[in-house]
């Protein structure tokens, strides 16, 4: 029982980290960025390459991969989202544009790395395990949960206490009003993408380490679960995404333990559905115009 809680928190921390970036972009731009999972995947590869070929230690490779993710995010914003800014159907065309970017990035990964599953070399992270009661927790798992919580804390701080954070929130409220107030909207949006993709990249590297597999299609299932998380948490809400991420992780694991693994994926979508039908704004989302 204790072990399953550990499993759930661990899985949940990755979902939470992934969802944070997802929901940030939605909060700011009202667009679902389906290229997020491609950045997730690509930066796992970046970290892998840094470790395998440049023999960098993980605590160097990790921030480098995260920064790389931010840069890719900037590129994606510039290429696929900014040109669509003025259009009336920009959230649907933005969605489609992000699908196009995701496909291109995945194709790039396939061509460069091949379709096989790769893993980080053994020993790149310490292998020790701790025993809490009857549960076994590896040092890696503790680190991952800590990083997820840490990034959430940093993000909340940035959004609440820094100038950039205030600007981001202003643009999220109303880009026109923000512009009138002298905010450089383009810069702020670019910054949000940088942060969002950096978070996605972090999630990707940690996922690759946690489950010892990196492959071009690793983003696909996480992307769909991520949708359930941000809907449950409330679109645009950081704490919502974090809570929902952990909640989904625990829910999935206990579904497996009690009902059997066949229902594992159905749980995420069942939750998604129920939330959208009965409480579209999710746990902590703003009660804005979510209904047509």
């Amino acid at each position, binding site marked *: 029982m204790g072990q399953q809680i550990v499993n759930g928190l661990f899985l949940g921390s990755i979902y939470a980290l992934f969802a944070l970036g997802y929901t940030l972009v939605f909060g700011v731009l009202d667009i679902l960025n389906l290229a997020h999972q491609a950045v997730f995947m690509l930066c796992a590869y970046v970290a892998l390459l840094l470790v395998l070929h440049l023999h960098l230690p993980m605590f160097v490779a990790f921030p480098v991969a995260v920064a790389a993710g931010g840069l890719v995010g900037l590129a994606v914003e510039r290429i696929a989202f900014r040109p669509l800014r003025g259009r009336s159907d920009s959230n649907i065309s933005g969605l489609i544009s992000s*699908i196009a970017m995701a496909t291109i990035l995945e194709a790039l990964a396939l061509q460069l790395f091949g379709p096989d599953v790769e893993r980080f070399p053994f020993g790149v992270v310490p292998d020790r395990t701790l025993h809490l009661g009857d549960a076994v927790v590896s040092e890696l798992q503790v680190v991952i949960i800590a990083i997820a919580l840490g990034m959430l804390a940093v993000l909340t701080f940035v959004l609440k206490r820094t100038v950039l954070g205030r600007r981001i929130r202003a643009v999220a409220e109303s880009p026109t009003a923000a512009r009138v107030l002298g905010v450089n909207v383009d810069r702020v949006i670019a910054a949000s993408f940088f942060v969002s993709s950096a978070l996605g990249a972090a999630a990707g590297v940690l996922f690759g380490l946690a489950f010892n597999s990196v492959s071009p299609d690793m983003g696909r299932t996480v992307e769909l679960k991520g949708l359930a998380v941000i809907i449950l948490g409330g679109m645009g809400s950081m704490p919502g995404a974090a809570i929902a991420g952990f909640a989904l992780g625990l829910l999935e694991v206990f579904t497996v333990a009690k009902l059997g693994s066949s229902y594992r994926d*159905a749980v995420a979508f069942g939750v998604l559905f129920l939330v959208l039908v009965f409480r*579209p704004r999710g746990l902590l989302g703003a009660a804005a115009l979510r209904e047509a």
Partner: protein
Amino acid sequence: MSAESLRDLWLTYQSTVAFIGLNGLLALSVYTTLSCGQLSLAQAGFMALGAYASAVLTLHTQAPFPLVLLAGAAAPALVAIPLGLPVLRLKGVFLAIATIGFGEVIRIFFVNLDFTNGALGLVAIPQRTGLPVIYAALGGALFVLWRIRGSRAGYALEAIREDEPAARTMGIDASAYKLSMLVLGAALAGLAGALDAHFNFMVAPSNYSFGRVVDMLVYAVVGGTTVFYGPVLGAAFLTLLPEVLREVGSRVGLQPGPLRLFVNGLVLLLVILFLPNGIASLPGRLRRRRAGAHAA
């Protein structure tokens, strides 16, 4: 070219021609809801329902093929109604997400359904689909959509797409129209699924994943969603492209898989950025540009 080599060429590519027809139907199924401004991505699930319903009928009863196809179209259409009622209230991206979720739930349902062998699916389905049936179905769908376009319903849909609140104030029952389009789209996807199942000998849940409906969306968008025949153009173009690329790619030394994916993504990106109304709008644009050049 001799008669025999023509015949061989035909045999080699007949499945491609069939897939163009099927993909055209699928693209149209996404288009129906797009035409009134709704992005529904549940079509892979509808396709699965149609495929399984028709396959089960064929394998367990002596039902004639037309009846089987009818069942394939009807099953998802019926399911679309209780789905649409709560879900069509949602705006834009939320509708998209809800329908994505629904599609996945259907897939997972079939993965766990022992009656249809779960993830292994049903095999050895007799091949009852031929090119004539596929193109008859496609032609029928195009005809229906063509008739809708010019009618009052067509104008209503257009109005809803442009500005739904305004359309409502004008007395248009937006909810009824949106639901009808969802049901029509479901029927088309189900029909395509039934045809596909009887062409490819098998149905399996892995054929009806999220990736599948993304493909359908890409066909529709690349072809153009402002005219009813646009999606079919997109389907034809993107189904032929991998065949052409295979020849090119092997000469240049690139892997066919990534190349096809890359070109799909690139085409979609270029279309959405520079040609938002798809391939179908190309002639109009060229005409305008030429007229503009003359008007100087």
